[in-house]
């Protein structure tokens, strides 16, 4: 494509720019842009890069706290975990590419999020994910699951960062738009964190990593549009990953970061060379001049337009300290990576590009970032649903109910998935998906402390009531971290929604954010990084609102950590929290009664804090043998997961006068935990709870190999296990 092409209305529209947006460009430039300049404005102002529909709402989030070193706005968030250690983490979506080409889409999603983390000086130590697929019977689901899981494993395993946990849901709402959200957690020194703001004048700009090819051109624009039946034609805009180069890039960057050679560094993610150079220049208030002839290229005859918009993977841009060029060259050559000195910082405040002896782009940087559209899209609140009384939902056979739940798509064992991920590489995985616990635990290398990590969201709650659902996804991660004995510190989020130009979808978005933020404030649990993925729609059908949350906490002393396994013969099963039998929007209602209705369980944030703090205190006082968050599937599923993890049976006793039977077993009241405790701990736990105003009830005992109750539950644990384990392999082998 030549820069001499005349810019027509059609070309502007093809670049996803509205008439008004184009007018601003004309106004800021005082002339017509050439093709290169138009392409650069187009990607910088795409939804994906500019957050034009979401920015004003994201600004509401609590983003500060005593442990926050860096909140949103950089490549990833940074928190302080004492002793000079910093944790750097973020979650990001790769939904659109993964639907079109599941293996490469998921793989490059993992690669991209890792780069966000090591760009800031951290060694990646853990990967997590949050996946949503369409209904299991949908013709595409199986191959999408197969490809996405292989892609996540193929990339993370090769780079040598353990994939320690995640979540996977199935629902028809994702038939046309799957969600692949990947999270990376890295470890750095608090005094060696790197940022993207370019500084100085005449400082050399280095390009490092893979060569630039024609892949992924306009990926960011693709991620900012809805799908239709022809979406498969977009396959060429999906990038291809090379985890081997990524691993070399990690080692080389960390080696160079141990010197004082780097002034600023930014990975080339969405919109590649364009967004990385513009962001570095804008944050540092400087200009950048690049000679594109020096960019390492994979193919002959690439135009400036293609180079600037390529999303080839595994590339970094950095500003190097003058005089340190040779040091940088030596390290990158040791790791056999392409490296090139492609430009300098300037004091012009402009992005100036040279190619073939000509200036092919010369535009001010500030408007690209500062004048990006910032829309206040109309939003319509989601109508409230009626509360559904569990008395209207029958449960005649507890055995059939439990088996149906344990073998249902959202509860059944994910062994088929996590056995394809290396969960142990790096020698510090203390707990992972293997245990089925609430959060993964990864030790800080060489120390007796650890980070706990979890991802969670309950889209059916968010769909029913965005505000309560938004609260719930934040508190569930907070509970998950609590369950393993961690102090929850901060979250990253990945906000997946439909088309923001529709007021009902925008209403979901605003509702979820407001609910999330209320929970963040109540729990002193700030958002430090995140990503927004909109336009998750196909042929006008939007996904359920899915604000995935990734929570990180600190286990200061690994001698005090727990998980859901560990119940012993004779242990008493206690429930912390109140069981009102809330059946509306529950998984039982959907999977067994085949009804998706009713208001979701309300989230009482005061109660959440009180109950969680108490459970954490019990863990630190060594009062509990096992802990599990009571969430999807309610009390009976939660207790069964504990039984399976410890390979021990239980006997439940539903107290006389309790709520309706379906609600008692399968209702999803919030702020609840199940604990396995020694018999002699029961009274002290109950009496302290009473003093604190926390409902706590003895609901059963562990022992034997059968699951029984006073309502006729009577199942062999082996039978339950085989139902739980069989579902996923059966789906994938069908």
């Amino acid at each position: 494509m030549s820069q001499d092409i005349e810019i027509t209305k059609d070309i502007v529209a093809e670049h996803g720019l509205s008439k008004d947006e184009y007018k601003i460009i004309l106004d800021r430039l005082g002339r017509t842009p050439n093709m290169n300049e138009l392409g650069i404005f187009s990607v910088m102002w795409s939804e994906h890069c500019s957050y034009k529909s979401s920015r004003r709402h994201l600004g509401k989030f609590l983003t500060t706290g005593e442990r926050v070193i860096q909140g949103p706005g950089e490549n990833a968030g940074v928190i302080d975990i004492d002793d000079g250690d910093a944790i750097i983490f973020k979650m990001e979506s790769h939904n659109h590419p993964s639907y079109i080409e599941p293996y490469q889409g998921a793989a490059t999603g993992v690669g991209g999020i890792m780069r966000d983390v090591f760009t800031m000086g951290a060694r990646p130590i853990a990967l997590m994910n949050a996946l949503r697929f369409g209904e299991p019977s949908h013709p595409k689901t199986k191959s999408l699951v197969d490809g996405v899981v292989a892609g996540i494993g193929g990339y993370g395993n090769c780079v040598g960062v353990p994939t320690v946990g995640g979540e996977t849901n199935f629902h028809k709402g994702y038939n046309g738009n799957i969600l692949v959200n990947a999270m990376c957690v890295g470890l750095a020194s608090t005094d060696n964190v790197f940022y993207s703001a370019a500084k100085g004048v005449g400082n050399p700009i280095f390009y490092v990593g893979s060569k630039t090819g024609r892949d992924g051109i306009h990926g960011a624009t693709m991620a900012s549009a809805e799908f239709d039946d022809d979406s498969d034609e977009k396959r060429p805009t999906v990038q291809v990953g090379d985890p081997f180069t990524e691993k070399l890039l990690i080692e080389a960057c960390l080696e160079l970061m141990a010197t004082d050679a780097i002034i600023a560094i930014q990975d080339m993610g969405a919109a590649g060379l364009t967004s990385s150079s513009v962001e570095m220049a804008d944050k540092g208030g400087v200009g950048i001049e690049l000679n594109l002839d020096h960019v390492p290229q994979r193919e002959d005859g690439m135009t400036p337009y293609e180079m600037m918009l390529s999303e080839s993977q595994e590339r970094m841009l950095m500003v190097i300290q003058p005089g340190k060029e040779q040091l940088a060259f030596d390290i990158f050559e040791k790791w056999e990576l392409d490296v090139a000195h492609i430009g300098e910082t300037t004091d012009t405040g402009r992005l100036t590009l040279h190619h073939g002896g000509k200036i092919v782009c010369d535009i001010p940087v500030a408007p690209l970032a500062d004048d990006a559209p910032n829309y206040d899209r109309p939003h319509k609140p989601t109508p409230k649903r009626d509360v559904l009384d569990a008395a209207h939902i029958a449960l005649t056979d507890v055995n059939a109910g439990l088996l149906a739940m344990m073998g249902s798509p959202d509860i059944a064992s994910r062994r088929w998935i996590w056995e394809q991920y290396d969960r142990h590489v790096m020698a510090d995985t203390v707990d992972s998906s293997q245990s089925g616990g609430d959060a993964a635990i990864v030790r800080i290398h060489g120390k007796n402390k650890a980070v706990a990590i979890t991802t969670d969201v309950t889209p059916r709650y968010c769909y029913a009531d965005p505000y309560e659902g938004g609260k719930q996804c934040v508190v569930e991660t907070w509970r998950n971290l609590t369950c393993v004995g961690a102090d929850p510190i901060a979250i990253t989020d990945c906000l997946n929604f439909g088309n923001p130009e529709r007021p009902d979808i925008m209403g979901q978005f605003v509702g979820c954010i407001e609910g999330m933020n209320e929970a963040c404030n109540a729990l002193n649990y700030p958002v430090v990084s995140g990503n927004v993925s909109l336009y998750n729609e196909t042929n006008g059908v939007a996904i359920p609102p899915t604000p995935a949350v990734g929570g990180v906490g600190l286990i200061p002393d690994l001698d005090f950590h727990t998980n859901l396994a560990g119940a012993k013969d004779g242990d008493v099963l206690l429930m912390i929290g109140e069981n009102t039998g809330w059946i509306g929007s529950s998984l039982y209602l959907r999977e067994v009664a085949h009804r998706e209705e009713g208001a979701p369980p309300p989230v009482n944030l005061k109660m959440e804090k009180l109950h969680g703090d108490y459970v954490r205190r019990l863990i630190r006082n060594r009062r509990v043998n096992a802990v599990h968050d009571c969430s999807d599937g309610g009390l009976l599923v939660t207790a069964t997961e504990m039984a399976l993890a410890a390979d021990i049976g239980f006997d439940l006793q539903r107290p006389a006068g309790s709520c309706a039977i379906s609600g008692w077993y399968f209702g999803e009241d919030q702020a609840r935990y199940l604990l396995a405790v020694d018999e002699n701990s029961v009274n002290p736990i109950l009496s302290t709870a009473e003093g604190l105003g926390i409902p706590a009830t003895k609901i059963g005992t562990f022992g034997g190999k059968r699951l029984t109750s006073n309502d006729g539950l009577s199942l062999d644990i082996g039978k339950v296990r085989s139902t739980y384990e069989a579902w996923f392999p059966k789906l994938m082998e069908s």
Partner: protein
Amino acid sequence: MKTAVIQFPAANCDRDAITALEKITGRESTLIWHRETEIPEDIDFVVVPGGFSYGDYLRCGAMAARSPIVNDLVKKANGGLPVAGFCNGFQILCEAGLLPGALLRNKNLKFVCKPQKLKITNGNTRFTSAYGGQQEVVYPVAHHDGNYYADDATLSKLEKSGRVLFKYVDNPNGSARDIAGICNEDGNVFGMMPHPERAVDPLHGGTDGINFFKSILESR
């Protein structure tokens, strides 16, 4: 005992190996870059670590086996230096010709990561002696290409001469005759797909691997 771990590009279990060796020997372990040409004379035991050297491109372990350091590794191993390769390290030792056979793609074509039960089939070697009478161990496995293959004559020779040290219980990858770990004729070079170096810590993968390393330490 002075130990060393060879570092190939993207052989990412180098840290796992170093961590295990330092824990067991109580001494610092040396990382040797693949472009070096010599293993220091005072090294008593070398680990070729697992991972994805050269991204598993071409063929697992094929490119790493042509690294400069491997020439010296072969020379010193043939001279009796104890060497163990885990996972990708096993593949590299096969590609370098220090061990017979090859590792093919897992039978079900999928990567597999899980705790794996193994039968000790020869407890009287420098890699297994510390297990005493213990018959079974659990080491983690994590690989995509662990399906051990050799011709029948080689397999029979390995079995008859006691060079099969470990066999899988519930074969996870389709390996011939359930073979998990083998040694060379002289008994100083050993390779296996499972990871004993990931089983030396009760918080991480269990402790069944400790005696593997103690065997080497004690047989010196």
